[in-house]
């Protein structure tokens, strides 16, 4: 350990090897799989909503990767079937997440299909769930004395709205809601779908 070059060359080689194993090899493997037939690209509005989702940091509390019934009761909670690599081909940046301070959202559009519900929930989560610790997003909305013909009014229970006038959704809130409603991976998965089967029980045959 007295030479500079051998030290850094071997160090670099080890990192290159790790990159091959963790990034390149699985990347090649996943690129060979077909895109699931039921998956469609995001619409323009949904993409804008996705940008809101990303920039507001929803990923720090919400995962988008339901687990297999062999591991956890995600299906029973209504979060959807176990997700596979092909479910995410249109996702850039990926929003898989590492926390479930809030529930998994990969299929929230199916579980909670009401636009009105989402607008209320985004404006003030505690108007729906008293126990919720999700931030409110009042800046995605505006207060008006009365709603115009184009406005989407937010339905609020007593005590959560302004003293007078109405709360209407800004475009950002409508886009974000459109993205949430588009989150739907309930289509059947292709036979060659890839996911971590490490929890599969023996009797299930995989």
């Amino acid at each position, binding site marked *: 350990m007295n030479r500079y070059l051998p030290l850094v060359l071997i160090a670099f080689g080890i990192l290159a090897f790790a990159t091959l194993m963790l990034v390149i090899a699985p990347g090649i493997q996943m690129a060979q799989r077909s895109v699931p037939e039921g998956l469609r690209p995001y619409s323009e509005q949904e993409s804008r909503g996705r940008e809101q989702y990303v920039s507001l940091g929803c990923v720090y509390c919400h995962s988008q990767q339901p687990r297999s019934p062999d*591991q956890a009761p995600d299906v029973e909670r209504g979060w959807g079937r176990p997700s596979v690599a092909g479910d995410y081909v249109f996702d850039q940046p990926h929003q898989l997440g590492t926390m479930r301070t809030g529930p998994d959202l990969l299929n929230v559009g199916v579980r909670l299909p009401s636009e009105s519900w989402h607008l209320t929930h985004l404006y003030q989560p505690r108007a729906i769930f008293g126990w919720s610790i999700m931030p409110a997003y009042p800046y995605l909305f505006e207060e008006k004395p009365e709603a115009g013909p184009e406005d989407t009014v937010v339905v609020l229970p007593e005590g959560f709205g302004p003293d007078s006038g109405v709360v209407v959704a800004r475009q950002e809130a409508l886009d974000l809601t459109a993205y949430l409603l588009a989150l739907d991976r309930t289509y059947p998965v292709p036979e060659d779908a890839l996911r971590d089967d490490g929890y599969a029980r023996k009797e299930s045959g995989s």
Partner: protein
Amino acid sequence: MPITMGLLLALSFVVSLLALSFLIWAIATKQFALDRAHAATVFGKGGADGPDTDGTHLFDTTGIDRVSARPVRLLILGAIFWLVLGSTFGVIASLKLHWPDWLNQAAPLTFGRMRALHLNLVAYGWLSQIGIACMFWILPRIFRTPLRAPNLPVIGFWIWNIGITLGALAFAQGWTDGEEWLEFPWQLDMLLVLAGVFFVVPLVKTARAREVDHIYVTGWYFLAAMVWFPCLFFIANLPGIHYGIEEATVNWWFAHNVLGLWLTPLGVGTAYYFIPKIIGKPIYSYSLSLIGFWGLALFYSQVGIHHLIGGPVPTWVVTLSVVHSVMMFIPVIAVAINQHVTVARNLWALKESLPLRFISFGAVMYTLASFQGSIEALRSVNTITHFTHYTVGHAHLGAYAFVSIVMFGAAYHIMPRMMGRDFAHPGLIRLHFWLVVVGFAIYFFALTIGGLLQGLAMLDATRSFAESVILTKPWLEARSVGGTMMTLGHILFAINVIGILRKPRAVAQSAVAAE
């Protein structure tokens, strides 16, 4: 295809085993020929020159430190600035989890932005910068030659800090790359890459001009980290080539290697230098440090996909990362034996040196964080802890209790030797130590217990999801208390460091004259 993947998996094991056998052979046949004389490189030319405890060795007799002093001083100041700001954002994010309607008037204040600002500022502003400061202080010393091109790191300092400032402002406004640990827009990240060139070039030049044949163990970690981090950071930030799940594997390959191949070498390397230096005796077993280093390189580099256990990635790559996570026991035990035995045989030094208290505490936390990480990667454990606050507790055991606390000690050791005078308020150093240690204990146990309860609740189909949220609230409140104590400690740290820098010049000169 599965066969090909199986082959790759087998190849990984074979390569790892080959490397390990090579290492054992190399040690057995003395290819590396590491002995106590090499371990003593850490001391000056005359061998062990006695303990380097508080109030001693305040005068630079070799002419090395005074060249490194300018970049090191700037880097320490920059690091502390981001530490105070970054930990304040951390406390705000923590409070928001139990006061969700507090400070909610604008998008930059929302939890998602505060949390990511906290992470990026402490990871790149504080930890990376203080680690680079340690590189500039320690490497010329162990190479026994003054830093070459000492103006380059000053330029690098400004580019780095401008990059962090712009990155933070952009992120606060909602301009983000959208992946954990990679939030800053890649266009601004390229500023950090450029700054990296200004840091690496002078250090490599210094390494090549060294006046000692042997590269001390700290040098292995630092020189390798200087190759690893730029490669990682550049590849992960390259736009347009990553998408979907492939991007997720890049994300966690990168994010865990930031810890394993960047922050950990900085922390371990720093501890490997200061522990024997302060005590005045070489480390316990110098040959063992080889296993610690190469084991870290081989195993740590492949653990990242344990962040995607149970997710939409191929099973084999998850298993590969789980196996490597467990293999980390080997290098960690090697480092633990070396560092802890050296301290345990010289407990007197903890009384004589406040910095050593921080550094050896941090070194113990490295052992614990790594053990915890290895166990947490097991599928049976991970199924409970994944997606919960437990993981956040673990991350802070590694990045805070280990790396940050080692760096506090390093700064407290470097500053008096750089300025030629002691800290005016050693009492504040003691208070800083106890605030961060007690604060961290509260922080860690709250999130660990709360996270386990949360994970168990989420796995139980008979309990509603709401239950898993409600039961964490008291633990999240406790975390805010611990986090606030840690942040108060950082403010004391900042006060002390600014104090020693601002002392009038006249006093400094009389101290030199007295020497």
